[in-house]
């Protein structure tokens, strides 16, 4: 039994849980993120992460599991954001900012109320804390990730239509408001289950950057989906494994790995485009 065994990182129980959580989150986040990018709402996940912080703090205050309260508060926040987008006119943008910063301020306030030592806790939700993921956390993440995977698969065509051309979707009889609401709540749930892995401040990165990389390498929507999900899962798993050996913060490492992959994919796509051009010329 030594850490020289190739799969030594699989031995500690906390690592098994960390890897499972990273895998699920790495798969799910880009599957939801792809619709946000297509709808030009890339920063939606970031905003909902701010709101989720109030939920986390509420969990501390009520002494229940913070993931549960964060799911509830972030989902309510998502619904409010969608309602503002529908009914808000010129002030919609401003209302969103108020909501997002209100979320983070509310979180910090509530944490102050709950107990003095939980500043450490707060940091673990802001930047992720994979090694402290409990069995109960894993159960919640597993169930919610299964729901997200099923929904993004079952609704992929109507969601594509909605994000590609909302007016056309409406004329086709797709309930665009209900579906936008579902997408917003799925975003909130994804943000919440991802917060233990990469942290609320970096959640959006895992939803958006794998999609940005995959779209450089694909010509179809389904290809982009599959590649983005693969990049997300690979990045998350390798981040956790590397952080085990080099004692680095896993959340930050995952995001940096995904960004590195993004830079490589830009290089690859511009090279292949140049090659295509030169073969066309010659």
């Amino acid at each position: 039994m030594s850490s020289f065994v190739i799969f030594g990182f699989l031995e500690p129980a906390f690592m098994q849980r960390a890897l499972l959580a990273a895998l699920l989150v790495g798969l799910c986040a880009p599957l939801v993120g792809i619709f946000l990018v297509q709808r030009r709402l890339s920063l939606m996940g970031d905003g909902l992460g701010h709101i989720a912080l109030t939920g986390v703090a509420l969990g501390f205050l009520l002494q229940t599991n913070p993931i549960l309260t964060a799911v509830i508060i972030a989902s309510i926040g998502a619904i409010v954001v969608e309602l503002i987008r529908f009914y808000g006119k010129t002030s919609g943008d401003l209302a969103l900012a108020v909501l997002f910063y209100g979320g983070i301020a509310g979180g910090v306030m509530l944490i102050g109320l709950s107990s003095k030592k939980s500043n450490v806790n707060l940091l673990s939700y802001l930047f992720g804390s994979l090694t402290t993921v409990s069995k109960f956390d894993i159960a919640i993440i597993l169930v919610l990730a299964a729901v997200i995977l099923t929904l993004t698969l079952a609704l992929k065509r109507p969601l594509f239509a909605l994000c590609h051309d909302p007016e056309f979707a409406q004329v086709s009889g797709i309930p665009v408001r209900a579906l936008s609401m579902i997408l917003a709540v799925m975003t909130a749930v994804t943000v919440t289950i991802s917060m233990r892995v990469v942290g609320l401040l970096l959640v959006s990165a895992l939803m958006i950057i794998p999609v940005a990389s995959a779209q450089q390498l694909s010509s179809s929507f389904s290809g982009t989906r599959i590649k983005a999900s693969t990049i997300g899962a690979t990045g998350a798993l390798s981040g956790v494994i590397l952080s085990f050996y080099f004692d680095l913060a896993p959340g930050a490492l995952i995001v940096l790995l995904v960004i590195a992959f993004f830079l490589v994919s830009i290089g690859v796509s511009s090279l292949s485009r140049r090659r295509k051009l030169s073969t066309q010329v010659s």
Partner: protein
Amino acid sequence: MQIDIDVLRATDLSVHYPGRIALDSVSLSIKKSSVVAVLGANGSGKSTFVKACLGLAPIYSGQVEIFGQEFSKFKDHNRIGYVPQRLHDVMGIPATVAEVVESGRLSHGWLRQLGQLDKEKISHAIEVVGLKDRRNDSVNSLSGGQYQRTLIARALASEPDLLFLDEPTAGVDLATQIIFADALKHLVDGGTTVVLVSHELGPLRPLIDRAIMFREGRVDFDGSPEAEALDQHVFHDHPHSSQGRAQEWSL
């Protein structure tokens, strides 16, 4: 059963936007299997009229009936098709021609999975607009005209009985306009009614049965596209219009 039913009837239809009346109490009806051109300058209300008929513009007063049914009660979404006005804007996520055209089948039930019949209709629609060999290419790599044809194929795939097209040939090459005219003829022969918003008719002109001209949110002319009166509206200054406006028209 009344055979000669109006497929579209607008009664006193008004659309108000903040500070502007885009459509001012417009009443008109359209019969089955006709091709109606809705003409007018920018801001004349022609696009607003189509959007109001599709539930995409806020109706201030009046009502729209489609196939004899009040719009809010109308649920046969697959009977209406829509090709939106679109400049070729490159969207972020790549999607193939086939993926975009697939959306056209959602009007037959947005939650179901696509079957064999759907796939045949999708392939047929792509073939009709002449994009068979581009089927698996990203729409981001298409020319403006090819992209427009993709959107037309998307509408064709749902096999609508009433098809609205908003400036389908604006900024599109002649080849696309001719393909489009053929596709339109094919549809009309099959019994589809077409409402076409445009400010230039080009190769489509022989297909048009009726021209409705909008000006400042009202119907300014309604009659045969060959009517001299229309040409006068188009080419000559109109007594009610401000000077110089007529130069915007071209047919």
